């Protein structure tokens, strides 16, 4: 008995205790829901059988049903566009802003803090505001575009099937910029000043310094921000719910929203689960990249 107490106090027992706590937490709050979800995707489940495990097992039929729907390819490409465009713009604008606020000017840190306001706001609120801005008949953005002569015709941002997805992407980019900026700012602050000074003495110009010092030293942060960006973008649900609900005619529908629609609008819960399991598989790959890139964080 005393031995146990001793190892917990200052031996390997303490390590095991910590490990157990983390494991119990993970099993209860992550592994169980994921496994439960996988099980549901292999059964036939509706609203009324959700409380019991005893449901007809159908194997991979749900996956076959989902992938054979004509909608599947639309949703897939919408999701690819949504993720890739969101990440590209969030990252480049966020990185640009991070570099900008790295400069020493009065109020720089202050203003950088203010940028976080967007990140703090719930996506539903952001969605409601963007819905006003992007409204077809009375929206602010249309008013600005038309009165400045950019277009003569109103753009129906949310109801034109050729535009709706991009409207959602614009709002999502806006929402994601502060987070990208903040994480990259931290990375930039970690690069020692003297490396730049040495390079400057060697005659390297601003662009050369960015290319050969900033980018390589930021590799870990960029990898982390991109992987987190992919994960967050694939989780983006509220914004779509507030802006277009995936419409019109599914033109702005993406996998995560489709999964919800299947589960809670037509109560085909097993199909909704199948979509989310496929998303989980993809996210696991992304998460592996993320873990690898943070692994390199101490390399310099």
């Amino acid at each position, binding site marked *: 008995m005393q031995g146990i107490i001793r190892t917990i106090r200052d031996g390997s027992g303490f390590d095991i205790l910590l490990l157990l706590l983390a494991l119990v937490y993970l099993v209860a709050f992550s592994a169980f829901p994921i496994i439960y979800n996988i099980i549901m995707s292999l059964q036939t489940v509706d*609203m*009324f*059988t959700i409380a019991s495990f005893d449901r007809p097992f159908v194997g991979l039929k749900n996956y076959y049903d989902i992938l054979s729907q004509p909608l599947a390819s639309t949703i897939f490409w919408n999701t690819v566009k949504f993720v890739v465009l969101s990440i590209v713009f969030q990252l480049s604008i966020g990185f640009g802003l991070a570099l900008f606020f790295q400069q020493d000017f009065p109020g720089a840190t202050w203003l950088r803090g203010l940028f976080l306001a967007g990140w703090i706001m719930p996506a539903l609120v952001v969605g409601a505001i963007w819905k006003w801005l992007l*409204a077809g008949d009375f929206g602010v953005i249309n008013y600005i575009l038309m009165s400045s002569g950019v277009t003569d015709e109103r753009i129906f941002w*949310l*109801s034109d099937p050729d535009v709706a997805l991009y409207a959602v992407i614009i709002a999502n980019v806006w929402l994601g910029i502060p987070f990208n900026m903040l994480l990259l700012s931290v990375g930039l602050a970690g690069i020692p000043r003297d490396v730049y000074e040495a390079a400057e003495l060697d005659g390297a110009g601003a662009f050369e310094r960015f290319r050969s010092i900033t980018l390589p030293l930021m590799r870990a942060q960029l990898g982390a921000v991109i992987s987190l960006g992919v994960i967050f973008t694939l989780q983006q649900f509220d914004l779509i719910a507030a802006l277009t609900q995936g419409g019109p*005619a599914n033109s702005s529908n993406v996998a995560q929203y489709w999964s919800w629609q299947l589960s809670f609008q037509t*109560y085909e819960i097993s199909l909704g689960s199948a979509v989310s399991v496929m998303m989980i598989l993809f996210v696991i790959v992304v998460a592996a990249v993320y873990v690898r890139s943070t692994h390199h964080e101490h390399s310099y």
Partner: protein
Amino acid sequence: MKRIVKWMAGPIAFMGALFTAATAQAEPVTLEIWTIDRADQYIYLLKDEFEKAHPDIKLNLKTIEFRNMVNDLARAAATGEGPDVTYIDNPEVALFASRGLLLDLTPMIAESKIVKKDDIFPGPLASVTWDGKIYGLPRGANTIALYYNVDMFKAKGLDPDKPPRTWDELYEAAKKLTDPAKNVYGLAFSAVATEEGTFQFLPWLQMTGGDYDKVDTEGGVKVLEAWGKLLDEKLASPDTLIRGQYDSFATFNAGNAAMAISGPWELPRMATDAKFDYRATLLPVPHDGAPRASALGEGDNVILANSKHPKEAFILLEWLHSKMPEVWNRFGFLPASKVQVDNPQSPEIYAVFEESMKYARNRGPHPEWPKISKAIYTAIQSSLTHQSDPKTALGAAQKQIDAVLGK
């Protein structure tokens, strides 16, 4: 000691008296009620009246958002934590009844002195009937009609006494009334990708002979072409595709649409928001002499099968049913049964909706209604956005509907 006894005798006697009084009056039954009403609507306004009329029954109200109601009820049914009485939207009654989750009211209604089955209008009665049994009582009914702005009619040289009667006349009127310079569209309606889109579409389809189980028809194509023309020529806002009825109607109230298709639930809001002269008329028909149709809306009061107080719950349902003559003036519902409505507010509009009710048809009933509805609004959307032509869109919908109906 004596003093203590004397000192305690009073309270003990008092408590004894309380006890006998309580047992004599019997413990009041508390019914758990779920509703979609807000604090100034239907059941909240009726609660005190009911408790006064039936002091032995107390009501405990809980508001659930309309869009969460089915989810929450199904979860509650699965775990056995449900209410005694709840609101259910018309097309969802079959979903719950078919799974044996609702109490069959047929025998109770047969013995009731207040509820008479024959008095309930056929549409609302069909919506609470599943497999020949009655599972709920309609709290009222609603339907849709065409509202129009009389001032705008006069300004554009249209006769407000002769509102559009056919689809062609509706198109012509919308064309004349549309005024982009003033931000005015001819017509506001809803083709949104939800139950509301299906709700607005079905009457048009039914006037041409189709129905929810027969959408792949020439008439269906005609409806989508008519709707498409209104959108393509910007006689209705492109946002018709993403706006529900409430938001669409707001543009009519604001003077940005000259006509609007919606139901009587808009009247309380119009009284304050619409600063112009307005009237209503029956939904236009495909051509002169074509049969009329209209949508049947509103919800029902039902008792869950596992309620511990079915007798008291039915007393509540009966009592709510007896309020039918008041629902128009107090809640903006149309009566769902034959009753005399004295001094209706907005009497001309009431007359229009009262007539419209004669043509109102139920959606379904079918236990998998959400899937049928989705097939229909998906077809509407893909045709109006020109992703597919009306015939192909309706053909795809028909295939999905046939699969649900097991044809």
